[in-house]
């Protein structure tokens, strides 16, 4: 039991890759920038496998920060694609930010829980 707790969650491969420290809330408020970022993510993510979905949580219109803002979620059809993406994107630079890529729990992602 103790050993399980010590295992970092990112070491278990899921179909969802979460990129952290990628985008700022300000960039996401701007519709054009948001679209650009979405497209950049899709184009790059497709290189690693069958990309099913790209989710980039945006700040709420009232200015409140929604959970998961700053993260980018790439969902793949299989763990083969997500594993390649995690390895390939981790440490890469996106807009000057060094990307940290981790696996994200599929159940949470399915429930639109992006806080993790």
């Amino acid at each position: 039991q103790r050993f399980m707790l010590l295992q970092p969650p990112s070491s278990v491969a899921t179909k969802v890759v979460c990129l952290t420290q990628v985008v700022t809330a300000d960039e996401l408020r701007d519709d054009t920038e948001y679209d650009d970022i979405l497209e950049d993510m899709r184009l790059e993510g497709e290189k690693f496998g069958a990309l099913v979905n790209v989710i980039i949580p945006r700040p709420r219109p009232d200015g409140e920060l929604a959970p998961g803002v700053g993260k980018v979620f790439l969902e793949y059809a299989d763990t083969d694609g997500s594993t390649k993406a995690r390895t390939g994107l981790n440490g890469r630079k996106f807009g000057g930010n060094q990307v940290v890529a981790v696996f994200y729990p599929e159940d949470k992602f399915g429930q639109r829980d992006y806080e993790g």
Partner: protein
Amino acid sequence: ETGSGTRKRKSRWADEEPKQAIQLPDFMGGIEFDPEIQALNSRLLEISRMLSSGLPLDDRPEGARSPSPEPIYDNMGIRINTREFRARERLNKERQEIIAQIIKRNPAFKPPADYRPPKLHK
């Protein structure tokens, strides 16, 4: 073009992983997995372990040995024609040869401090 329809712009992704720049050159990464080098390395380790273990190097049973010759001593008074001495000499020689072979295949290999390159003349 400044039209907003089909924007042609640069991706925010940096072109290349900086990690790849510091990858080892092919000949270094590959040579460690060369089965011949691996065999040489493991034999080298085995010999080094045997030499430093202090255990008897000749473990043939008493009956399997040929009769001992008259003792010969070196100028320090140490007997040199023992089985133990010959076994040690043999291992040392093999060890030096293995190191020489590894160096030949991999010039970047760092030999142990006590390695002496083979002399070209006697």
